């Protein structure tokens, strides 16, 4: 494999215009859905909140797959492992903080 060909694939997998267009269309759809939950009264607030979380997670996955080209290939393995570990940290930080602070808040009331 020549040095140039190697560089192009480096950490990015195979890149194609179609990949970006598909990712863009999906991301726009999910963004419109998210804003729709807030700007219209089609669904109840409870459904809208859950919908917002689902749309955000889906959109992040779309970005990771179509823009950052993460997949299950061996070249991407360590990137994915690092991301998964960081996601675990993120969950511990956010959920842990909220748990501690809300419990504290309710005990102080």
């Amino acid at each position, binding site marked *: 494999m020549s040095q140039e060909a*190697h560089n192009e694939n*480096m950490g990015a997998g195979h890149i194609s215009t179609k990949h970006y267009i598909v990712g863009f269309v999906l991301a726009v759809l999910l963004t419109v859905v998210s804003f729709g939950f*807030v700007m219209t009264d089609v669904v109840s607030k409870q459904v809208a909140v859950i919908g917002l979380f689902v749309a955000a997670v889906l959109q992040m996955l779309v970005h990771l797959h179509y823009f950052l080209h993460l997949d299950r290939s061996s070249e991407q393995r360590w990137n994915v492992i690092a991301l998964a570990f960081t996601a675990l940290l993120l969950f511990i930080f956010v959920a842990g903080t909220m748990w501690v602070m809300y419990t504290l808040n309710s005990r102080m009331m």
Partner: protein
Amino acid sequence: MNTDITNLDAAKARELEHAHHLEMKTFGFWIYLMSDLVIFSVLFATFAVHGKNYAGGPTPQQLYDIPYLFVETMFLLVSSVTYGLSMVAMQHNNKKMVLVGLVITFLLGLGFVSMEIHEFYGMIMSNAGPDRSGYLSSFFTLVGTHGTHVSFGLLWMGIMMYQVVKRGFTAEVRSRLMRLSLFWHFLDIVWVGVFTVVYLLGWMGVS
């Protein structure tokens, strides 16, 4: 004859080593991005705790302009795609298209930052600055940290446009453009979290 083969092997080994080195650089940059994600996650946690501490001050419903936010979001999303298309052009060694893509990405990113600064300015002027309440402190810290990242991305992009013009697609320039690509897409992912949690859920009075 024997030495020729040895030289050839040595050259090949050097080339492989170089490629390996660049790959390690990309992975190292990915690890940096993950540590950056840790910073953002703590700021998200802070916002989750303080998001409703209005201290009698303005609430998200009074401060946010949702259609304005939608335009801002689209600027960043389209800029992510134009950067990606610029990288496709780099694969085909199309210097002109790479530069066109980078210029469009830069302008969209600049539009995003300008809209954010305009929003911050309006808020601070109407007595809704970071010192007003716990909610606003955590709002400005989280959204401001993201905006600062985008601004540094723009600076980096400006430098890369200069390097593409001056040096062309050398191995170093290519690898830097790939890392900026990771950085730029990463910031768009963080923005998805920001507009969902801070703006939309905040508007609904949830976070």
